[in-house]
């Protein structure tokens, strides 16, 4: 099951990240997972939030350049080699990961990871066949 990631373009300017977080916070939107891809002159903030529709509307209303990206959140055993075992399966099935990052919280004893795949549908099929738990939007809202 896909979940929605919001990407926000951030120019290299002081306080820009803080602006995004303050805006979301002021509207009671909670950031569940976050990463920043940075280059020399700009960054792209990637977040998973509890209310993505509301969040993107809010960001755009406030002149942020923001868009949706489909990602998959999966549970990974929170123990040494936990991530390695999942990556091994994906690799064996030729599933390419573009990037990944971790959730802030977890709702079981397992760690939560956001993964962006080159081919999201194919990756989901593989994950389902291997019975790797894919987190739903509902579960994220309930975090």
């Amino acid at each position: 099951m896909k979940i929605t990631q919001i990407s926000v373009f951030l120019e290299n300017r002081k306080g820009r990240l803080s602006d995004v977080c303050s805006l979301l916070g002021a509207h009671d939107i909670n950031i569940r997972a976050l990463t920043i891809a940075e280059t020399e002159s700009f960054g792209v903030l990637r977040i998973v939030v509890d209310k993505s529709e509301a969040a993107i509307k809010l960001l755009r209303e406030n002149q942020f350049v923001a868009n949706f990206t489909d990602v998959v959140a999966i549970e990974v055993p929170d123990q040494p080699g936990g991530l390695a075992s999942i990556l091994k399966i994906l690799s064996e099935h030729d599933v390419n990961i573009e990037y990944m990052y971790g959730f802030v919280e977890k709702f079981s004893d397992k760690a939560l990871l956001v993964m962006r795949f080159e081919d999201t549908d194919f990756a989901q099929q593989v994950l389902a066949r291997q019975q790797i738990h894919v987190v739903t939007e509902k579960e994220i809202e309930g975090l």
Partner: protein
Amino acid sequence: MDIPFWNKEIETAERSRLEQIQLERLKVTVGWALKTALYRKRLNQAGINSPDDIKSLGDLRRIPFTTKDDLRVSFPKGHLAVDMVDVLRIHSSSGTTGIPTVIYYSREDVDNWTDLLARSIVGAGGTRADVFQNMMTYGFFTGGLGLHYGAERVGMTVIPISGGNTKRQIQTMRDFRSTVLHVTPSYLLHIHSKLGDEGVCLEDLALRKAFIGAEPHSENTRRKLQDLLRIEAFNSYGLSELNGPGVAFECVCRKDMHVWEDGYIAEIIDPKTGEVLKDGQEGELVLTNIVRRATPILRYRTRDLAFLHPQGCDCGRTHRRLSRILGRTDDMLIINGVNVFPSQIEEKIMKIPEVATNYLIHVDKKGALDRLTVKVEIYPKLFLGEVSKLESLKHKIVEELRASITISPAVELHEPGSLPVSEGKAKRVVDERPKD
């Protein structure tokens, strides 16, 4: 002081003799111009139907001015006065938009130009014993090839190294004991700052002179160059529309540049009214080339602000001296010696769909060199969240601009609404280079 001459008779000719030469050559030039689509109509409208309609130098004022825009409209051959078979070379410079300014040279034209450059070099004390390292870019740009030909005519040992590659420039200066450089002032300062990195000190070099040009610079910059490198630095002036370098050059007195008045007629005008001003008064330099057959250019508005000295020079030359360039009447930028019009940049970036309508051109100094940064706002609908797409957009903008203006700017992507909004004539250019 020993004053060297290339052609003493002409260089020290009485004014009346010079004016006689100018009149004869102007008539011939008008004859050539009448063969071109660009000039035929406008000369006829001014009542000039044959060279004989030019009876005195005063008749020059009957001829309308020529602008860079006229040369754009007449691109590519509307100002060509000979058959292509008689064209020996083409040079080109940036136009105000994507259409460049093109100049054709016949064999005789290259020869005349080369002679004026040999005169310039010798006047500044260059000799056949010198090793001449030409750091100006070779190619369409006139700075490289122009001086190259002049230096060969003088008999110098010419190193056609062209611009850039500082490491190699320094090694070459050391290995071949270069004595005379042709370079932009900012690049020479940059080279000086890098000597240490190459483990080279002044004692390893044999430098004695530099011909500096292609960008405006102050007397302070000249002095700084002279002190730092223990050389004599000579100002030069030229523009591709009028052949290139060698329109005006400093003699050994180094007190502003002699305009070679047997090759060019120089006027200073009020840029607003077009009225011709007196010597000593500052205004826009207008030049007429009177020794070029393939591309005759009459009363060309250079957009450069300067003045002509009313009094003669200690060297004994009668050709009037032109001040250093004091400014521009248009918005042309000179970035490390390369002429760039903001309109060229705008034209390119507005064709890229991912770019929104706002942009800013920023110029500053990084060390001794100029740095051009083009800041654009991205178009929100085309943002899909991928960093690689944004990086390729940046590269695309750099490549598009490099193809147009020949230099690679830094490109910054910005959020919509973050750059100053255009209100009528927006301030699109911020030039933060120090004016020393």
